[in-house]
């Protein structure tokens, strides 16, 4: 009896693990079946097996890795340039009142321009070269990082700053040990928000004007009605977005380990 109970527990636990997969797998099966019987035209939606095949062939001929690398390079360059600039501006306006008076209202005004609206201008300026895409991504990520850096620095506990002065910290030590760590949660929030904007901008920019990258790959495939490649591109975008988000979450957990709201997350992770 006891043995039977134990076996039942194991079965139940396995069931609980498998249950969440039931619906997606079922859908996938129905989808595959519908495509195989011809009920679902490949022009509307290709079969999952076709997408898998497209993945395999583009992987083997090297075109998928090449496009992913090009897109990732644009994303990283744009993030570094725009994020770096946003951080520097936020730091400056957060730390120095004159800089805030000089810059903040202009930046707030620029922030209200949807950065994708300037694509026609950007194409006029840069053509469809690399600069256009990197410029757009930079503009897109600049503002969330600027705003969150500024806000983070401004909201550092004044009592802590006063304490640091009493304990003799110089300006450099004050920023390194008190102000920047205090602003970090807000800055990282800005980075996470910026990552979302980064992929979105890249998708739009690559779809409109590019000769390489995942966006180009899908647009090119559309012209030849290769829906399997289009869907593959969408999936790759989703995976890259997920990867970036996972990376920042990991970074947050490491950098903000002192924060009680991250303690539980850390404990479950390890």
């Amino acid at each position, binding site marked *: 009896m006891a043995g039977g109970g134990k076996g039942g527990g194991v079965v139940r636990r396995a069931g609980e693990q498998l249950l969440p997969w039931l619906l997606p797998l079922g859908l996938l099966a129905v989808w595959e079946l519908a495509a195989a019987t011809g009920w679902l035209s490949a022009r509307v939606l290709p079969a999952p097996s076709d997408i898998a095949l497209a993945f395999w062939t583009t992987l083997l001929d090297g075109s998928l890795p090449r496009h992913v690398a090009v897109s990732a390079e644009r994303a990283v360059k744009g993030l570094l340039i725009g994020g770096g600039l946003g951080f520097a501006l936020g730091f400056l306006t957060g730390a120095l009142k004159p800089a805030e008076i000089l810059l903040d209202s202009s930046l707030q005004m620029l922030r209200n321009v949807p950065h994708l609206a300037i694509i026609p201008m950007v194409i006029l300026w840069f053509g469809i070269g690399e600069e256009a895409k990197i410029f757009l991504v930079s503009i897109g990520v600049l503002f969330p990082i600027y705003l969150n850096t500024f806000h983070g620095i401004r909201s550092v506990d004044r009592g802590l700053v006063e304490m640091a002065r009493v304990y003799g910290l110089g300006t450099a030590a004050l920023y390194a040990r008190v102000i920047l760590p205090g602003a970090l949660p807000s800055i990282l929030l800005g980075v996470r928000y910026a990552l979302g904007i980064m992929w979105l901008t890249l998708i739009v920019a690559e779809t409109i004007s590019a000769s390489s990258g995942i966006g180009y790959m899908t647009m090119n495939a559309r012209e030849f009605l290769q829906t399997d490649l289009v869907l593959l591109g969408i999936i790759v975008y989703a995976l890259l977005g997920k990867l970036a988000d996972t990376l920042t979450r990991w970074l947050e957990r490491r950098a903000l380990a002192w*924060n*009680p709201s991250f303690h539980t997350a850390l404990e479950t992770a390890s």
Partner: protein
Amino acid sequence: MTALLQALRRLPLPRSVAVPSPSVTAALPRASFERARPLELRLDGVVKEFAGRRVLDGLDLTVPAGQFVAVVGRSGGGKSTLMRLIVGLDRPSGGRVLVDGRPVSGLRPDVRLLFQDPRLLPWQRAVGNVGIARGPGWRERALAALDDVGLADRAEEWPSVLSGGQRQRVALARALVSNPGLLLLDEPFGALDALTRQEMHRLLRRIREEHGFGAVLITHDVAEAVALADRVLVLREGKIALDLDIGGPDQRPDESAVAALEARILRDV
């Protein structure tokens, strides 16, 4: 971790000035701190105004080196303002503040202020908070100071997991690490429960005997003032309304005398 701490505690700690005399070492089986050079505090007609409103109105006071003074007074009576002047965070509108015979011209490491809230950096562990000023050998000195307040085994904890009393003890260790000659305490135990307060009183008394610093303690609690201080001042309307000698650590008043003293102070607050 504990093994490492114990190993560190056995290491000879670098001491900057004097080697403690044999009698002091014998009295201290724990961390062997050098005794501070106690500093005298003098106020010479100190005036402080905020937007024309006079908060301190010509204070004259001499606190001999090593004396423990408690200051009681109503909320908003200018007690914290006085502390900020002594520690050098703010300048008087008139008169002079002298520490060790010299006018206060800025912050100095041998005058330390303990705030009402611990003000620990949440992103530094206890030991990192105590050694916030860094400098050579800071870690050993911070660990020794934590040992002194009884928190050697919590050195690697984040402040967020410590109790209120433990946090205030970390703050005390941070003040002690530079071996101050004058310690200013701005209602440091106000937010603690009664039992923890008593524990903190015992700790503060012991540490003061070890270190020999002078102290100015602000408190709302008259009993606390009488229990800890050698002398109690009442600050009222920007002036010293009462200056009461209670006696040093070895001549504490008995219970009935304490009650009489408390009644006398409360009448003047």
